[in-house]
C-alpha cells in the first residue's frame, strides 16, 4: 500500500481539511505524471531545440516535485523533533529556489515563444525582442529592488523578491498571450499551433498566480483550499501542453501581405535599423591615400564635369 505524505495530516485534521488533503494527494501525483508525460512528448517529437526553455521548466518542476514529496513525508512523520524541522528547512529552500528557477525559465519561454511567433517577420521580431529584453531586465531590477526593505532578512527577502519577479513575469505572460491570440492569423498560425498552446497554458498559470496573490492576502495558510484550485489548474495546463505536443501540429500558413501593409513597411524599416553604417570621407583626405588608378579616374571625371562658361554671360 502506498502512503502519501498528506495522509497523516488529514488523519489528524477534522472535516474540510481532511477532504482537501485527500484531493491534494491525488493532484500531486497527477501533476508529476502529467509533467513527465509532457516532457516525454517534447522529447519524442524532437521539439527540444525550439522549446528547450519549456522542457527545462517541466524538468525543474518534475525534479522539485519528486524531491519535495519525500521531504514533506519526513516533516509530517517527525513533526516535533529536529529531523522534522530540518526537513521543513530543506522543503522551504527547495520550494522557493525551484520557484525562482521556474520564474526565470518562464520569462525565457515567453521570450522564445515571441521569437517563434514572429519568425516570418524578421525585422519586427528583432525590434520586439530588443524591447522585450529591456522590459524584462528593468522588471527584474525593479522586482529585486522593491522587495528590499530595512527589516527584511534572508528568507523573507527571498520570498518577497521571488513573488515580485513572479508577478512581473505573470503580467508579461498575459501580454504575450493577448498578442499571440489577436495576431495569430497575420502570423500564419492557428489555434492548433504549439505556439498558441504553450501561450495559453502560460496565460492560465499567470492569471491563477495573480488571483492567488490576492487570495493569499486573506488566507496565508499552508494547507488552504486554494491549493486545490492550484493543483487542478496545473494539471489542466500540463494536460494541455501534453496534448499539444503529442498531437501533430498543423502547418503554418504562408503569410501574404498587401504591398501597402503597414506590417510590411515596419518590418522593412526594422530590418535595416540594426545594420552597421557605412562611412563617407567628407574632407581632410590626403592624395597619398588614393591609388594612382583612382587619381586618374577622378581627374578624368573632373575634366568631364567642367561646364563651359555661357557665352551670353561673357558677352
Amino acid at each position, binding site marked *: 500500500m502506498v502512503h502519501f505524505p498528506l495522509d497523516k495530516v488529514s488523519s489528524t485534521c477534522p472535516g474540510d481539511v481532511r477532504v482537501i488533503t485527500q484531493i491534494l494527494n491525488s493532484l500531486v501525483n497527477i501533476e508529476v505524471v502529467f509533467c513527465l508525460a509532457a516532457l516525454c512528448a517534447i522529447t519524442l517529437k524532437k521539439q527540444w531545440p525550439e522549446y528547450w526553455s519549456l522542457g527545462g521548466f517541466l524538468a525543474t518542476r518534475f525534479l522539485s516535485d519528486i524531491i519535495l514529496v519525500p521531504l514533506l513525508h519526513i516533516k509530517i512523520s517527525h513533526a516535533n523533533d529536529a529531523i522534522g524541522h530540518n526537513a521543513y528547512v530543506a522543503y522551504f529552500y527547495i520550494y522557493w529556489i525551484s520557484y525562482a528557477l521556474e520564474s526565470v525559465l518562464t520569462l525565457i519561454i515567453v521570450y522564445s515563444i515571441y521569437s517563434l511567433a514572429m519568425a516570418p517577420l524578421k525585422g519586427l521580431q528583432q525590434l520586439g525582442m530588443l524591447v522585450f529584453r529591456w522590459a524584462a531586465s528593468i522588471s527584474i531590477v525593479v522586482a529585486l529592488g522593491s522587495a528590499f526593505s530595512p527589516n527584511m532578512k534572508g528568507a523573507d527577502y527571498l520570498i518577497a523578491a521571488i513573488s515580485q519577479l513572479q508577478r512581473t513575469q505573470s503580467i508579461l505572460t498575459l501580454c504575450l498571450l493577448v498578442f499571440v491570440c489577436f495576431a495569430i492569423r497575420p502570423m500564419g498560425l492557428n489555434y492548433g499551433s504549439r505556439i498558441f498552446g504553450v501561450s495559453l497554458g502560460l496565460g492560465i498559470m499567470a492569471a491563477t498566480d495573480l488571483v492567488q496573490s490576492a487570495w493569499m492576502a486573506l488566507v496565508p495558510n499552508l494547507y488552504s483550499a486554494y491549493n486545490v484550485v492550484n493543483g487542478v489548474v496545473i*494539471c489542466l495546463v500540463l494536460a494541455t501542453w501534453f496534448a499539444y505536443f503529442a498531437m501533430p501540429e498543423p502547418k503554418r500558413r504562408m503569410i501574404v501581405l498587401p504591398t501597402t501593409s503597414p506590417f510590411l513597411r515596419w518590418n522593412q524599416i526594422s530590418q535595416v535599423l540594426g545594420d552597421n553604417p557605412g562611412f563617407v570621407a567628407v574632407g581632410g583626405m590626403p592624395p597619398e591615400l588614393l591609388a594612382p588608378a583612382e587619381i586618374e579616374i577622378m581627374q578624368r571625371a573632373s575634366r568631364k564635369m567642367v561646364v563651359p562658361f555661357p557665352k551670353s554671360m561673357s558677352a
Partner: protein
Amino acid sequence: MKIIVRSLVIALAVTGAIATSYANAASSKTTTKAPVSIHKTSAMPVPTCNPNNPGSC
C-alpha cells in the same frame, strides 16, 4: 471558436489585471510581518513560515 478563444483570453487578462490591483492594495495595507506573496501553481503545499524565525507563524 475564434470568439470563444478571444473571450477566454480577454477574461484571463482582465482577471489578472483586477487581481494585480487587489494584491497591490492588500500589500499596501499589510504589515511588514506578513507580506503578500505569490506561490507556485502546484498541488504542493506552500511553505510560508520562515524556518529561521520561530515567531513567523
